[in-house]
């Protein structure tokens, strides 16, 4: 199988440097060219919207049912939080998995070596990955958030009237997407730090789902304070239209707290990426 093709390329008139745009293009190629990314996103969309519809339908069909008073009251008090809390609440698992996989799959398959040979300064790889992943999530999560809202509110229409023009509603729906984006970036940072898929997914899910339960067991006001500043607890405030009496943070403050956690985690991840042998 000998080839006679030329070794040297047909020369570009002026070879241009790739720069950060090139790195973002490359990250997009990586994300779209692997089935797991595409499938995780499809599952995320289906689960979120499907589950929102299912819970809304069950709520609607069992209105005035035996367990109804508290649930119905919640649906009336904070319909947006109620609608988004179901599908998005479970969908964030998929986002955590995806955020971790985007980087750990490079470690498990060895692609990271190719990536770092191409960009030996390393940190631009993480930056480009974070930007491309965030933009992809922006599109997908906002579509999911709005679809979930419309599907949920349409099904609950008979008992709960809620529209985007209501106070804080648009903010909460957009905020649900924003929350998922930042959560995805936090998972990306955790994946970069831990480098192993299973370990990183465990840690990410532990932070999102398990820590709030543990901190909820802490007694007194300092337990409540710790709880309020956890990434998930603080971050999801933005998806509620009505502030609860016990809330220590406003929706945007809560979102800010999540962002700070994520920026810190990304900084540590960047430091470790730069320092460690690949």
């Amino acid at each position, binding site marked *: *199988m000998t080839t006679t093709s030329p070794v040297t390329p047909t020369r570009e008139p002026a070879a241009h440097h790739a720069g950060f745009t090139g790195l973002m293009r*490359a990250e997009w190629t990586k994300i779209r060219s692997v089935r797991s990314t595409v499938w995780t996103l499809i599952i995320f969309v289906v689960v979120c919207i499907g589950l929102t519809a299912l819970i809304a339908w069950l709520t609607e069909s069992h209105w005035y049912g035996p367990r109804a008073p508290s649930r119905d009251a919640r649906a009336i008090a904070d319909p947006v939080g109620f609608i988004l809390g179901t599908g998005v609440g479970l969908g964030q698992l998929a986002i955590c998995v995806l955020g971790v996989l985007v980087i750990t799959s490079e470690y498990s398959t060895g692609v990271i070596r190719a990536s770092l040979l191409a960009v030996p300064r390393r940190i631009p790889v993480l930056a480009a990955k974070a930007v491309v992943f965030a933009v992809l999530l922006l599109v997908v999560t906002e579509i999911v958030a709005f679809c979930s809202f419309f599907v949920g509110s349409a099904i609950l229409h008979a008992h709960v009237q809620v529209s985007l023009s209501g106070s804080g509603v648009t903010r909460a729906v957009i905020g649900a997407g924003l929350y998922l984006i930042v959560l995805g970036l936090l998972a990306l940072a955790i994946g970069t730090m831990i480098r192993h898929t299973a370990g990183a997914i465990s840690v990410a899910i532990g932070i999102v789902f398990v820590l709030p339960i543990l901190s909820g067991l802490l007694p007194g006001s300092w337990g409540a304070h710790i709880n309020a500043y956890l990434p998930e607890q603080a971050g999801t405030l933005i998806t509620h239209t009505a502030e609860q009496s016990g809330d220590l943070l406003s929706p945007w403050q809560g979102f800010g707290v999540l962002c700070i956690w994520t920026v810190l985690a990304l900084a540590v991840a960047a430091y470790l990426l730069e320092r460690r042998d690949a």
Partner: protein
Amino acid sequence: MIETRDLTKLYGGKAAVDHLTFTVEPGQVTGFLGPNGAGKSTTMRLILGLDRPQSGTALINGRRYRDLRDPLRTVGALLEAKTVHPGRSARNHLLFLAQTQGLPARRVEEVLALVGLQDVADKRAGNFSLGMSQRLGVAVAMLGDPQVLLLDEPVNGLDPEGVLWIRNLMKRLAAEGRTILVSSHLMNEMAVTADHLIVIGRGKLITEASTEDVIARSTDRSVRVRTPDADRLAELITAAGGKVVRGAPAEGAGLLTVTGLESSRIGQLAASASVVLHELTPLASLEGAFMELTAGSVEFGVPGQDPVNAQEGSAR
């Protein structure tokens, strides 16, 4: 050109690369030879900035790898370890790398044609045979049309056709004036591929010379002698027409490497002068250097070398 100076890498306190200094010149194929575990891959990873050395420097055309802009246009690397996602197609793997370097998508097609993978370019790389994977690795290395190439064990596991293909490609690239560093643990392969050899063992430089010289020396039989009375014996050997090289002080003052005399003759000389011998081992010099440093690697052979004798050294 590749230059390493005093390159040192420790893993858990043990030196994988130990104060390694060498230069790889352009226009020839330089073989990087050593038994498995000698530190060849680590050295390459240090040159490529994948690992950080504890001390020392590695420069490519006078610059550190991490200081190169769009480095794949200067340096192409084929690593022994996997670097491709099994679920991604060859074309997409090459495409994302091209995008990081500002190379046009057309270049991807060119390197696919160069290695003969056009027909399977959209298949998942995980289903590639070893030979196809190796071809993809070469395509990656050639993507930026680099002046410097580092190939880690490129013929490992390839069929004879593949071996020949890689060998001819390396020669062609060297003839174009590129710098080629190719590692192998097989002396035979290097003997027919490389113009120049850098031989290492246990992370240390054993020799750096033209392939011709190394082969000439390795077929020139030598004998290792250890004695408490080294000065006396050296005199006797020289008088009898042999050549003596003193061992490094670290290996003990009493170590001599003798060429030009058979071991039996050295034994007679010592006995006649009542010189005590602690060791008397026939070796080929390169082989000897290897055995000294690598203690028991049997995967190293020299063309034309009697395999039984070569094993003696390792079985010792």
